[in-house]
C-alpha cells in the first residue's frame, strides 16, 4: 500500500513534468478577482429572505404564487391567499415547480446539431451564432420555396407566446398550429355555435351541477376545482356521468356509469323531457333564442326510453335528472369543462349541452354558465409588413386530405375542399388543425412545408400517431425548437434554443377572462441560472439578424420595412420588456405596482358581473344575433344545424375495448413526469380494466399487460377495478416516453400517442382521442 501511494504521488516530486508543463494560455480563467480585497468580509452578501409574487406556469391555470427566496435561491413556492382565481390553492405541480429552475436536466445554452437527426450529437454555440443560423435558414427556405408559409410554427399557450408571434409575423408564414385542436377546440366550437362564445361555470353559486366526462378533482381548472370542493354552496347537488368512477364521481350525489360516446343521447333526452313537460324557461326562450320550434321537432324522438338503450342509464334516472335540472334553473349548470378532444361528433355533443342551458335560462346569471368578462389592456400599435410570397394555410388549402381520418357520419360537404375555415368561424386562424396540418405536410399538398419551429410544444408525444409525426419531422429541412428541457421533439431538432423558466423571466401582462376576470404578469422570482433567454429576447435576436439579410425583405413595400423597423424593432423589441408591460397597463393607474406586489390585478375588487348579454340590444355573435338553438351558419355550410344524434361510426371488433385517456392532478400532459417531487407521487401509469373482464382474461391487479390498437402497442401495468365499465379501458397520459434520457418516465408505463389513432373532427379541426379501440392481453 505504502509503495503504491509513493509511486502514485510521484507527480508531487520536484522533477514533475506537471510543473514544467504548466504554461497555460491566457484568458482561460472562469474565476476573476473580486472587486475588493480578499477577506474583506464587509462585501459578503448578507443572508436574505424575500417574498416575490408571480404566477404558476406548471399548467395553464396560472395560479397566484409567492416565491420565498432565501439567499438568492428559491426555497419554496407558496400559494397567494389573495388571488381571485386560484383562491389560495397551489396544487402538487405548483409546489413542485420549485425544482424546475434547479433541474440539472434543463437546457442551459443554445445547441446545434452536428450528427444525424436524433443521433444526439450537439455542439454549444453562442446566442449570436444561434440567431444568425436561424435567420440564414429562414432566408434559405424563403428563397428556395418562394413561399413564406413553407415554414410552420407550432406553439402552446403561454404568456411569452405573443412574442413568438412577433417572429412568425416578421417572417410572414400563415402556418401556425397550437395545442387547441388537441384539447378544447370542439368545446369552444360547440358552445359558440349556440351562444357565440365559450362560457365559464359559476360553481361557487350553482345549486345543481351536471358534469359529463369532466374529472375536476383530477384535471384541475381554477377556480372550478377549488369551488366544487372547498367552496361548494350548501345544498348544491352534483351529478356526474362518466364511464369511470372518478375522484369527481366519488364526491357526487349521483354517479352514472354512462356508456362512452353517448353523452349527447343523455342530454338530448333531458331536453326532450324538459320541453315535453313544459319545464323550460318560456320567457328566456322567447326573448333570447332562435330555432326553438325546430329543436322541439328534432328532440321529439329522443325520449328517455330511446336514450336508455344508447346510454345504458335507466330512463327514469334521465327523467329525474331533467326535472331536477329544470327545477333548480337558472342556478343549474351543465358543466362546459375544458378538454373535449373525445369523439368525432364532439362539437354536436357540446352544442347539445349549450342548448340545455339555453332553454332553461341558465345563462349569464348567478349560479349558471356565464360568458367570460375581461379587463381590457392597451395593445401595442404593431404593423407587420405585408409579404407577397405568402400562401394560405395548408390546413385550409388542403384538398381531399382528411377523408381517411374523418368518420363519414360527421363528414361535412366541405370535406372535398379542405376544412371549413374562419370565414364561418369554424377553425380559429392561429390554432390551425394539427392532424390536417400534418397530413398536408406529409403529402406536400397543397405545397411543401420544409421548415418547422416549435415553441414549448412536444408534438412527438402529444399528437396522436407518433409514426406520422416522426415522418413529418423527417421531411423538414430545418427544425428549431425553443424549450426548457430536451423534449422528445427537441431531440430531433437542428438547433435547440434554451428558454428561461417562468420563475426567471418577465412575462407580459395578460388579461385572463372569466367570471372573475383578472390581469396577470410575471416578474423574475430568481435570477436566471444559465445562459437562457425568453421568447421576447429570442424573437428580438432573430429578427435583428433577419434584418441583415436583404433577400428576406424583397417581397414587401420598402415603406413597410421602415415602419416595421421603427414600430416593432426599435419601439418594442429593443426596449426593456417592462416598458411593454407598462404600456399594456396604461389605462389602469396603479396596476403595474399592484402586479409587482401581488402578481395579479382586478377591477371592482374582482367581483363578478352578470347579465351583460341579457341587456336590451345585445347581439350574440351569431348570424341572427340571438342564442341559436338552430345554427344558421351550419345550415349555410351544409352541416347539421341542430344537434342530431350521431351514431358511432367506428365500432369495436369483438374483444376490443374503447380506449379512454385522462389526467391526474399531479402531472401536466407530457411535461412533468420527470419532476423528482411529482415522481414520488406516481412512478408509472396503469391501465384501468374492469374486474370481470380481467377475470375472463386471467389478468390480475398489478400484472403487466400489452395493449394494442390499429397503430401501435404498449406494455403497461393493469389496475383491475370495479371503477370502470367493462367496455372500455383507461390510462393517464404522459408516460412511456421514447427518450431514454427521461430517466424517470422512460419505459415507465405506456404512451397514449403510440396507441391513439388520428381521428379528426372536421368542424373544429380537433383530434378525437376516444375513437380508438384496443385489445389487451397478458404481457
Amino acid at each position: 500500500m505504502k509503495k503504491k501511494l509513493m509511486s502514485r504521488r510521484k507527480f508531487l516530486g520536484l522533477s514533475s513534468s506537471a510543473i514544467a508543463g504548466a504554461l497555460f494560455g491566457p484568458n482561460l480563467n472562469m474565476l476573476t478577482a473580486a472587486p475588493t480585497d480578499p477577506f474583506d468580509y464587509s462585501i459578503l452578501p448578507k443572508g436574505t429572505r424575500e417574498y416575490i409574487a408571480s404566477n404558476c406556469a406548471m399548467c395553464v391555470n396560472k395560479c397566484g404564487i409567492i416565491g420565498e427566496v432565501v439567499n438568492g435561491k428559491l426555497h419554496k413556492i407558496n400559494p397567494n391567499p389573495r388571488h381571485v382565481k386560484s383562491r389560495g390553492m397551489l396544487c402538487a405541480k405548483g409546489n413542485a415547480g420549485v425544482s424546475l429552475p434547479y433541474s440539472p436536466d434543463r437546457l442551459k445554452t443554445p445547441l446545434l446539431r452536428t450528427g444525424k437527426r436524433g443521433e444526439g450529437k450537439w455542439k454549444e454555440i453562442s446566442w449570436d451564432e444561434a440567431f444568425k443560423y436561424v435567420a440564414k435558414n429562414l432566408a434559405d427556405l424563403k428563397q428556395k420555396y418562394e413561399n413564406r408559409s413553407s415554414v410552420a410554427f407550432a406553439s402552446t399557450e403561454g404568456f411569452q407566446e405573443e412574442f413568438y408571434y412577433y417572429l412568425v409575423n416578421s417572417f410572414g408564414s400563415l402556418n401556425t398550429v397550437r395545442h387547441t385542436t388537441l384539447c378544447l377546440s370542439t368545446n369552444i366550437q360547440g358552445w359558440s355555435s349556440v351562444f357565440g362564445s365559450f362560457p365559464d361555470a359559476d360553481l361557487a353559486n350553482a345549486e345543481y351541477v351536471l358534469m359529463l366526462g369532466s374529472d375536476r378533482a383530477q384535471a384541475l381548472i381554477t377556480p372550478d376545482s377549488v369551488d366544487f370542493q372547498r367552496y361548494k354552496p350548501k345544498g348544491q347537488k352534483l351529478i356526474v356521468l362518466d364511464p369511470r368512477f372518478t375522484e369527481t364521481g366519488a364526491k357526487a350525489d349521483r354517479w352514472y356509469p354512462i356508456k362512452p360516446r353517448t353523452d349527447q343521447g343523455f342530454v338530448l333526452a333531458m331536453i326532450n323531457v324538459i320541453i315535453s313537460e313544459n319545464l323550460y324557461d318560456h320567457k328566456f326562450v322567447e326573448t333570447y333564442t332562435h330555432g326553438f320550434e325546430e329543436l322541439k321537432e328534432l328532440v321529439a324522438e329522443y325520449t328517455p326510453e330511446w336514450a336508455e338503450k344508447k346510454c345504458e342509464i335507466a330512463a327514469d334516472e334521465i327523467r329525474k335528472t331533467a326535472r331536477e335540472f329544470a327545477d333548480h334553473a337558472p342556478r343549474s349548470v351543465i358543466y362546459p369543462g375544458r378538454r373535449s378532444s373525445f369523439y368525432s361528433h364532439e362539437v354536436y355533443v357540446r352544442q347539445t349541452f349549450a342548448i340545455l342551458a339555453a332553454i332553461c335560462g341558465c345563462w349569464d346569471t348567478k349560479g349558471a354558465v356565464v360568458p367570460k368578462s375581461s379587463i381590457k389592456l392597451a395593445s401595442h400599435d404593431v404593423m407587420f409588413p405585408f409579404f407577397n410570397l405568402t400562401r394560405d394555410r395548408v390546413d385550409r388549402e388542403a384538398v381531399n386530405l382528411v377523408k381517411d381520418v374523418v368518420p363519414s357520419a360527421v363528414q361535412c360537404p366541405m370535406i372535398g375542399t379542405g376544412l371549413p375555415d374562419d370565414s364561418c368561424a369554424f377553425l380559429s386562424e392561429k390554432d390551425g388543425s394539427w392532424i390536417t396540418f400534418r397530413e398536408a405536410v406529409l403529402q406536400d399538398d397543397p405545397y411543401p412545408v420544409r421548415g418547422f419551429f416549435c415553441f414549448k410544444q412536444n408534438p412527438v408525444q402529444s399528437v396522436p400517431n407518433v409514426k406520422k409525426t416522426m415522418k413529418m419531422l423527417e421531411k423538414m429541412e430545418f427544425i428549431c425548437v425553443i424549450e426548457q428541457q430536451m423534449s422528445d421533439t427537441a431531440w430531433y431538432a437542428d438547433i435547440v434554443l434554451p428558454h428561461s423558466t417562468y420563475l426567471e423571466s418577465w412575462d407580459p401582462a395578460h388579461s385572463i377572462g372569466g367570471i372573475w376576470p383578472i390581469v396577470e404578469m410575471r416578474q423574475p422570482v430568481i435570477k436566471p441560472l444559465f445562459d437562457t433567454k425568453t421568447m421576447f429576447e429570442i424573437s428580438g435576436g432573430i429578427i435583428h439578424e433577419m434584418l441583415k439579410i436583404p433577400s428576406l425583405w424583397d417581397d414587401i413595400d420598402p415603406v413597410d420595412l421602415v415602419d416595421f423597423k421603427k414600430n416593432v424593432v426599435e419601439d418594442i423589441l429593443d426596449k426593456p420588456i417592462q416598458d411593454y408591460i407598462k404600456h399594456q397597463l396604461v389605462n389602469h393607474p396603479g396596476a403595474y405596482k399592484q402586479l409587482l406586489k401581488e402578481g395579479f390585478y382586478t377591477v371592482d375588487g374582482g367581483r363578478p358581473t352578470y347579465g351583460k348579454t341579457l341587456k336590451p340590444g345585445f347581439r350574440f355573435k351569431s348570424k341572427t344575433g340571438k342564442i341559436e338553438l338552430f345554427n344558421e351558419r351550419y345550415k349555410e355550410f351544409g352541416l347539421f344545424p341542430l344537434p342530431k344524434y350521431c351514431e358511432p361510426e367506428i365500432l369495436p371488433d369483438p374483444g376490443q375495448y374503447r380506449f379512454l385517456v385522462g389526467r391526474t392532478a399531479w402531472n401536466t400532459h407530457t411535461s412533468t413526469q420527470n419532476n423528482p417531487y411529482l415522481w414520488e407521487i406516481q412512478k408509472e401509469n396503469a391501465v384501468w380494466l374492469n374486474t370481470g373482464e380481467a377475470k375472463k382474461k386471467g389478468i390480475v391487479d398489478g400484472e403487466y399487460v400489452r395493449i394494442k390498437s390499429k397503430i401501435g402497442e404498449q406494455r403497461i401495468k393493469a389496475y383491475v377495478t370495479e371503477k370502470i365499465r367493462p367496455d372500455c379501458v383507461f390510462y393517464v397520459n404522459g408516460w412511456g416516453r421514447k427518450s431514454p434520457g427521461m430517466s424517470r418516465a422512460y419505459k415507465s408505463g405506456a404512451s397514449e400517442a403510440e396507441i391513439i389513432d388520428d381521428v379528426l373532427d372536421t368542424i373544429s379541426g380537433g383530434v378525437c382521442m376516444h375513437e380508438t379501440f384496443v385489445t389487451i392481453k397478458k404481457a
Partner: protein
Amino acid sequence: MEMSFESLKETIFAQSRTLRPGMQDKHETSAWDKNRLDVESALALKNIFFYLSLIFRYPTEQIYSEIAGHLEAFTDFFTDYGGAVPELPPIDDLQPEYISLFVNNQGFVPAAPYASCYQGDGLLMSDNFYRLRQIIMESGFMLDASVHELEDHLAVLLEFCSSLLNTLVEKNNSSDKNLMACIYALLEISYRYIEPLVDDFTDKINSYASYDFYKVTGKALKSLFHDADPIYVQLLGFRSNSTNELQG
C-alpha cells in the same frame, strides 16, 4: 499545540463555520507552520487541478487546443491515477461527447458536473451552495461575468482549488495572515464539494461515455481525490495521526 491533519479536517465538517471566525481563532492560526509547505508539490497539484478544470469544461477550440497541447506534461499523472494516458478524440467528436455526458442528453444529463447534484435531492444549488459562494468571495474571487455557469461546476471548483494553491505558493514567504484561510478553503472545497461527487460522477461517465477520454480522466479525478489525505499531508506539511501511512 500543533493541530493534526485529521482534527483540521474534522473542524471543516464539525460545524457550518465561515472562514471569518476561523481567522480570529488563535488556535487555528497557529495550527500551521507555513515553512512546511512543499512548494514544488503545491505547484504540481495546482497545475493538475487547472488541467483537470480545462478537461471538464466544454471543449471550445481554445480549450481543446490547451488540453491537446499540455497532455504530454500530465502523462505521469494520468498513468498513475487514470491507469492510462487518455486518448484525445478529434474536437468534432469530443464536443458532442461532452454535451451528451455533461450538458444535455435526451431529457436528462447522465453525469451532471455540479457538486449540488450529488448532495440532498440531486438538484442544482443545494443547501451548501450559498456557502460555496461565500467561500469563493471570501477568498477574493468571483465568477467572471462572461461565464454562465454555477460556482459548483466541477471545472470552477477545480480552478478555484488551483487558485488557492497558487495563493499559498505566492504568499508563502509573506506574512499574510490569511494563508490558513486558504488552507481551510482548499480542504473544504476538496472534501465537502468535490470528493462526494467523484464516485457517482465517474460511474455515470463509465456507463454513458462513447469514448475513453472522459473515462480515463474521470478515473484520474476520482483516484486523485481518494488519495487527497496523504497528498495534502505531504504538501501542507501537517502532522498526521497516521503519519507513516499517509506521508509515505
